[in-house]
């Protein structure tokens, strides 16, 4: 229904720079997620799009129109809050009808639309109740119904799943995806939960300290993180980081330090030496790309010590100690080993990400 574009948007609170020259574009009908740790400026960005906060500089476009000076009530948007923000003095019915009543729509239309929205979210039986009589999940549905009842051109959701229990959250993820695809309304969704971003987003924007760290399709961001922050933020368990340097001897290029070494293929080695010559590097490897064996393996394997074993049922996370650092590896569920036992670790060459330690940017 609308394309949203931010151009060099900044926001300051005193001397604290909450959002730093943010520029991005959200496509029509897209499910766009802004992901980041708390205090990274994601909610501020959402509030600026809503018009609840004024940017210090920069422009916000809805399609081709600059909306900086349009107050929130005239932007034709709907918002769902983490706290649900239901009006405590109104019944569920009145809560959902609220945005329509303000706009002085005819009574018959209000009644019909409230009914439709309530049925869509399966809360028709709750209409006469008051917010304090509802459970967290029910309140969440009422807040959603209030947002969809008006058929706005843009949905803004601020951590809508954070206040409901874990089981319901998993369920609501699927419901939200289905609802968004059904209504085909451009949606901007803010969360600190990378699982929500991975599972729900068409595209995700990762923010850190007010800056855009990376933007792209969730799987692309997962597979090719642009910097150390994104690499460490997305994925559970988080990516392992091995500090290392690159050495060439006898035509063979090797990444390593005192405890390990892996061979780099020539093409990659060339890229690294072009982009970050003589730099200290960080080798990033997801736990899924570390394999562990009790006997020495073919190829580049290195010795480590078992630090802890965390069986999850479907898989087992093995913590291994290399020097003073602990790394995580995901193994099959039937892996078993004793603490302190010596094991052999191998890095999957396809799962290697190389970063420049100083700039923190991905190199190869």
């Amino acid at each position, binding site marked *: 229904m609308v394309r949203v574009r931010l151009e060099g948007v900044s926001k300051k609170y005193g001397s604290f720079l909450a959002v730093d020259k943010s520029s991005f574009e959200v496509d029509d009908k897209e499910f766009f997620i802004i992901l980041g740790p708390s205090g990274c400026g994601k909610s501020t960005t959402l*509030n600026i799009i*809503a*018009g*609840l906060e004024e940017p210090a500089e920069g422009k916000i476009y809805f399609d081709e129109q600059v909306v900086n000076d349009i*107050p*929130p*009530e005239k*932007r034709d*948007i*709907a*918002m769902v*809050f*983490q*706290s*649900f*923000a*239901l*009006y*405590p*003095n109104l019944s569920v019915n009145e809560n959902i009808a*609220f*945005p329509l009543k*303000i*706009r002085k729509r005819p009574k018959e239309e209000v009644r019909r639309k409230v009914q439709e929205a309530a049925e869509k979210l399966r809360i028709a039986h709750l209409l006469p109740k008051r*917010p*304090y009589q509802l459970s967290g999940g029910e309140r969440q549905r009422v807040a959603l119904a*209030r947002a969809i009842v008006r058929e706005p051109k843009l949905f*803004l959701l601020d951590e809508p799943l954070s206040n409901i229990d874990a089981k319901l959250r998993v369920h609501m993820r699927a419901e939200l995806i289905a609802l968004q695809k059904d209504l085909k309304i451009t949606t901007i969704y803010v969360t600190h939960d990378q699982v929500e971003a991975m599972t729900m987003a068409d595209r995700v924007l990762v923010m850190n300290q007010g800056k855009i760290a990376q933007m792209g399709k969730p799987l692309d961001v997962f597979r090719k993180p642009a910097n150390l922050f994104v690499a460490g933020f997305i994925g559970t368990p988080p990516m392992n980081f091995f500090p290392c340097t690159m050495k060439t001897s006898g035509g063979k290029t090797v990444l390593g330090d005192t405890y390990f070494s892996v061979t780099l293929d020539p093409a990659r080695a060339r890229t690294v030496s072009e982009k970050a010559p003589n730099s200290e590097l960080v080798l990033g490897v997801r736990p899924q790309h570390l394999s562990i064996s009790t006997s020495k393996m073919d190829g580049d394997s290195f010795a480590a010590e078992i630090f802890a074993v965390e069986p999850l049922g479907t898989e087992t996370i093995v913590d291994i100690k290399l020097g003073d650092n602990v790394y995580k590896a995901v193994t099959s569920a039937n892996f078993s080993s004793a603490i302190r036992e010596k094991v052999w670790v191998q890095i999957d060459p396809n799962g290697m990400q190389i970063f420049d330690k100083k700039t923190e940017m991905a190199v190869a």
Partner: protein
Amino acid sequence: MHSRKRKVGLAVAAILVGLWVLAPLVWMADMTIMTEREIHTRPPNPVPINATLNNYYYVFNAAAALAERQSEGEGSFARSAVYFLPQIATEIPRALGNSVFVALCMVGINVIGATMAGYSFARVRFRGSWPLFRFTITSRLLPPVAVLIPFYLIIKSLGLLDSLFALVLIYSAYTLPISIWIIHGYLQALPPDLEEAARVDGYSRLEVIFNTVFPVMRPGIVAIGIYSFMLAYVEFFFAFVLTGTASSHTLPVIIASIGANPVSPTGILMAAGVVTMLPPVILILVFRRYIISGLVTSAVK
């Protein structure tokens, strides 16, 4: 067994506390329907034999009482309430009006002024908001004695001595800081989500304040209304110094003046006490629901 003992114990304690609080009030009300002679009988007689509403009549019509005294003759030792009645008692009805008027002005000023100011301090970011808020609150910490003389001189130079307007000004200075503080604290505890939701749903900023914020914080607004009413209604110190004549005397000043006589008419004084109690009691009965209610607790979470 244990819990039953506990219940009985609690009930007994509640009754004792109730008696402790109510007994003086009941005794006061009891004395208003006695004649002066009966009040001073030894031993006291709790149930009046010749119950009379004369004392209330005299409260509202002291002139009649004084005239009665005149007709009985100064020399005769008339053992009636009116015998000791000072001239100033004739001001009671007017003083009651003055007190209620000033107190209602305070309610209006606090409800409008403090909610606006409290909302601004809590929700609107502007340069100097925090120092201004702190200054407002700390100004209330000055003891009344410290500011009495400066206030007197200011009021005098404004030509407002002996006027109700002077009292309204000074009580505003004394009630607004606390009221602003209460409203500010109330709003701080209230997440701004509700207001933001209402903004997005289609209200303008002013509509949000009047249609969303005020209904939710009604208990807080009632609280500052009652607080400011009570403060203005019972205030004696400033009223005593700044008022001079019947045109601006408030009830506390009049009652104190009557009570300050070496011998005062107990029955009439008690009746004046009951009459004085009525406005705040009515106010609290009307707003009881909001004083008790915790509407906001279910507002957001």
